[in-house]
């Protein structure tokens, strides 16, 4: 894909984040979409492409009153929106549409109008994983981490520090759910969820949504906000069964999506000013730093524990507080993208001064899928 050929020209989250008991899931989509359309200075009728996940594109198009010429219903979990950005950029480049709306919303906490997630008894997961007592992401996503720690020499304290430093970022974000400072001891003494992970190493459960609007870079300068260009993208999938990953020492999907995006962008790791790594659980930033090639996996725990990703560190990461402290409605990828866009526009509550390149890396399912988007504010 050509670098910087497509830009984000509208970006917004739902009016409220957190606990939203007065809105159904589909209305959260609409709330985010209308906010993004306003942010871009557009009318609904300007939208000719639509992408969403879990909810179908036809559901969202009909509810908003949009007649698209291009749709994408890629639904691979929380990183679906990174893939939507990649697909939308390709579609705009190919002339299939001009202005794409990507929406996410989930009534993850209030469960109003939320679609059921099921694991049928005759699916592979239903036959070969569910009978052993897996029950929701907290019982599944951490399954690889003990092996990862043993292989790479990572300590419990190092992984706990992920939650500590993200809380420092969250404290700078007025919309973050959890802002009170925590220590490594607080993390390691919090309620046990699925050993080795305790509640402060697991994501929040909240309501909310977000939406993005993309168009060609040639048109982007006519919009009210600073354009944020798509510099590089990558995507992949591995397996819906965490037990069937090729190795627990890294993520197969990460090792395709991340490096593909870096190659497309033509940048080196030292060029990255700002980093988002989807943190549904505290081990994901370690996997991400290693699999995206920032450093060997053996160094990831120490790198974070030494404070390199905290406020003032040399690689600011998860600057909204992440899924651990900002919000997590179930599919967090959209919020990581929103924070990258805010950082590139220069309007983030915890702004990284002078940031020009932001890497936004997402996961879907339990290491099942991955998408990476690299943004820049310089053309």
């Amino acid at each position, binding site marked *: 894909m050509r670098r910087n050929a497509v830009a984000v020209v509208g970006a917004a989250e739902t009016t409220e984040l957190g606990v939203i008991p007065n809105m159904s899931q589909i209305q959260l989509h609409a709330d985010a979409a209308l906010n993004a359309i306003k942010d871009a200075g557009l009318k609904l009728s300007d939208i000719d492409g639509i992408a969403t996940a879990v909810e179908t594109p036809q559901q969202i198009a009909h509810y908003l009153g949009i007649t698209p010429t291009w749709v994408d219903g890629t639904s691979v979990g929380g990183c679906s929106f990174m893939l939507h950005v990649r697909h939308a950029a390709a579609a705009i480049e190919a002339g299939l549409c001009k202005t794409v709306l990507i929406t996410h919303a989930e009534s993850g906490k209030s469960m109003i109008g939320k679609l059921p997630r099921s694991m049928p008894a005759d699916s592979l997961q239903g036959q*070969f994983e569910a*009978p052993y007592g*897996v*029950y929701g992401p907290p*019982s599944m996503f951490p*399954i690889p981490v*003990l092996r990862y720690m043993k292989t790479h020499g990572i300590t419990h304290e190092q992984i706990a520090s992920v939650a500590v430093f993200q809380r420092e970022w969250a404290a700078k974000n007025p919309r973050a759910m959890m802002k009170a400072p925590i220590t490594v001891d607080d993390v390691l003494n919090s309620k046990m969820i699925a050993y080795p992970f305790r509640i402060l190493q697991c994501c929040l459960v909240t309501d909310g949504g977000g939406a993005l609007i993309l168009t060609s870079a040639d048109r982007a300068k006519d919009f009210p906000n600073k354009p944020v260009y798509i510099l590089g993208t990558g995507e992949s999938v591995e397996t819906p069964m965490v037990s069937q990953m090729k190795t627990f020492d890294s993520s197969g999907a990460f090792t395709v999506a991340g490096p593909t995006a870096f190659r497309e962008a033509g940048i080196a790791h030292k060029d990255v000013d700002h980093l988002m790594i989807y943190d549904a659980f505290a081990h994901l930033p370690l996997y991400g730093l290693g699999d995206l090639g920032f450093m060997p996996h053996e160094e990831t725990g120490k790198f974070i524990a030494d404070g390199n990703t905290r406020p003032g560190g040399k690689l600011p990461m998860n600057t909204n507080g992440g899924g651990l402290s900002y919000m997590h409605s179930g599919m967090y990828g959209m919020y990581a993208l929103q924070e990258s866009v805010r950082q590139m526009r220069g309007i983030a509550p915890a702004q990284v001064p002078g940031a020009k390149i932001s890497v936004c890396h997402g996961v879907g399912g339990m290491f099942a899928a991955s998408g990476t988007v690299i943004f820049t504010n310089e053309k």
Partner: protein
Amino acid sequence: MAEPARARPKPTPETQHYWDGAKAGELRLQRCDDCSNVYFPPRPFCPSCASRKVSVFQASGKGFLYSYVINHRPAAPGFTPPYAIAVVELDEGPRLMSSIIDCPQTPEALELDMKLEVAFEKLDDTITLPVFRPAKG
């Protein structure tokens, strides 16, 4: 309201041999007749070379503890926390999710790389689950 039931596998035509094997006290895997790849979960072709010439065989039932969590909350219906959800690497190569029986469900007792052997837990008249216990000797 009735308590939700424990999840029970429902075999498909492609996996029936595996569940028939478990019921008979055998852990069955598949091997490609063309490239010798041993794989799991069951399917009637080789995921390495795409050959449809594959055979079912009885695995040794021996392996080691690759990784695990000890689930505390929320517990799946039919399970009493804390309980381990393990991934076992078989001597033949494939890994599978399982439970570890005859062993305290603690980090101290559940040592990565510990040797394991298959056992069978009957759920009902049609389904028996392969599980693992620490290997003797």
